């Protein structure tokens, strides 16, 4: 009986009962460089500023001037401590929607409000179709989606879709607000399907990795690992990746 049930649950290993669609020819994404993120939260505030007044907004706040302010954000910067004292490292870790190539949040949506654009791979929400059932948020292992408590629709990072194609902006400004705001250049933006793009080269040459690879969501956003770089004049082979204890 258990075997029969497991057979019945053959699809239980995958969120989508149907096979995933072929990967898009173009996949826009962010690459986050953990070497240089200083945890200033400029990407968080610039994201909120742009998107609350853009096509994804307003991103409402509750109790904004009270003791416990809360509100809708598309992007957060978290901080982790790695290693054992005295060899500890503080790692600042920005987190937003990873625009998975096989996004588990999309097929579960009962209304089709949650979708992945074929043209550029951006995962978006149609706020006019969303019924606020929150099932897509349950189906995202990364916690990348937040319901807007006032509008009662699901919201998430749009990769500033209302900005990156805007012909009224100068070409160098057609990037997500978080990328433009980052003072250390920790956020790279581009097409990860183009092997010659800045993001593809960074992933290839600097060991870019995906979050929670165990769930096979193929996140488009990737992270560049923290490396302990050798001081000037030192043997460069001493450079190693944080936490591995081995020379790269």
């Amino acid at each position, binding site marked *: 009986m258990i075997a029969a*049930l497991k057979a*019945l*649950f053959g*699809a*239980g*290993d*995958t*969120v*989508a*009962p149907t096979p995933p669609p072929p990967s898009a020819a173009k996949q826009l994404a962010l690459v986050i460089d*953990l070497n240089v993120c200083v945890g200033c*939260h400029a990407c968080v505030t610039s994201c909120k500023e742009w998107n609350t007044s853009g096509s994804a907004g307003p991103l409402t706040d509750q109790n904004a001037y009270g*003791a*416990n*302010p*809360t*509100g809708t*954000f598309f992007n*957060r910067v*978290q*901080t*982790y401590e*790695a*290693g*054992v004292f005295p060899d500890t490292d503080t*790692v600042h*870790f920005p987190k937003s929607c990873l625009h998975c190539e096989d996004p*588990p949040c999309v*097929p*579960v*949506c*009962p*209304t*089709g*409000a949650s979708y992945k654009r074929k043209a550029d791979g951006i995962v978006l929400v149609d706020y006019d*179709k969303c*019924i*606020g*059932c*929150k*099932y897509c*948020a*349950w*189906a*995202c*292992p*990364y*916690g990348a989606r*937040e*319901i807007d408590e006032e509008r*009662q*629709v699901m919201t998430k990072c749009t990769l500033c879709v209302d900005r990156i194609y805007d012909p009224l902006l100068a070409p160098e400004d057609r990037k997500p607000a978080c990328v433009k705001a980052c003072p250390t250049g920790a956020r790279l933006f581009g097409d990860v399907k183009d092997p010659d793009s800045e993001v593809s080269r960074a992933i290839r040459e600097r060991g870019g990795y995906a*979050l*929670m*690879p*165990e*769930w096979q969501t193929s996140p488009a956003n990737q992270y560049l*690992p*923290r490396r302990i770089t050798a001081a000037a004049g030192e043997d460069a082979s001493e450079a190693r990746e*944080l936490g591995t204890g081995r020379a790269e």
Partner: protein
Amino acid sequence: MNPAFSVVAFTTLAGAAQGLIVALALAVLGGVPMTPAFLAFGLVAAFVLLCAGLAASFLHLGRPARAWRAAAMWRTSWLSREVIVLPALITLVALWWLAIEAAPPVLARLVLPLAAIAVAALLWYCTAMIYACLRFIEEWAQPLTLVNFVLLGIASGFVLASALAALAGERQFLAASGPVAIVATLVAWATRMAALRRNAAIRHRSTLQSATGIRAARLVQTSMGMSAGSFNTREFFHRASQLAMRRIRLAVIVLAFAAPLVAMLLAWATAAAPLWVVAALLQAPGLLADRWYFFAQAKHPQNLYYQVVS
């Protein structure tokens, strides 16, 4: 997960209604003698429970006025499929109720009961798969999720049917439904305990290391990035203490299974009809507590990112 009372109420009410429908349909198909008035009352009870469940499910929506859109994605979404099957079952129960006196016997005594069993089973499958298809919620992504939705529904439905039969003095129906209620409750108890034990022992595949890609053996969060919480901290953490969780688990075992079983066995032994009603009244809060526990016990991997305020 933070259990939403709307979903707890919906799945418990609908599950009992489905079990009641199956009990009535099997009795009709098996030729168990009962008055048409009792069958009609049972179907009305199932109809009311299903409608109450549907109403509860609307309370879960941020935008209930748009609920009609939820039938659109039935090709990929189990939630969408449930949204189609639930009104279908309500309609079928209403048609069956209309057909009791009016329709030809082949419709009222064969086709509609068979269809009701099939659609009730389909609804259990859809409801269970909403949870079981989320592969990274490892407490849910397992066959016992489906087994328990079906068995808890059947157990509660047959206990309810037996209580109604005891109240209505339907001795022959009670003689048939009572033993099934006792056995179903016993089996549901066993499979639910198996699921609880399995889930308590899960070693989750996601770790803080896999969630962040930072490979240090010792890795702790020092800030989740905000001070006063967010949707992520409200939706996915139940905030009940370990003591409260243990007490609720005990309440589930006693109220949903042990106490109703004692009441039913006593009722069976002494032919004291009111004890069937006592069993149903004991089981109802137990099943609500069990469904609450089903949600609370599930640890969402996103919680790894929200451990420390600052």
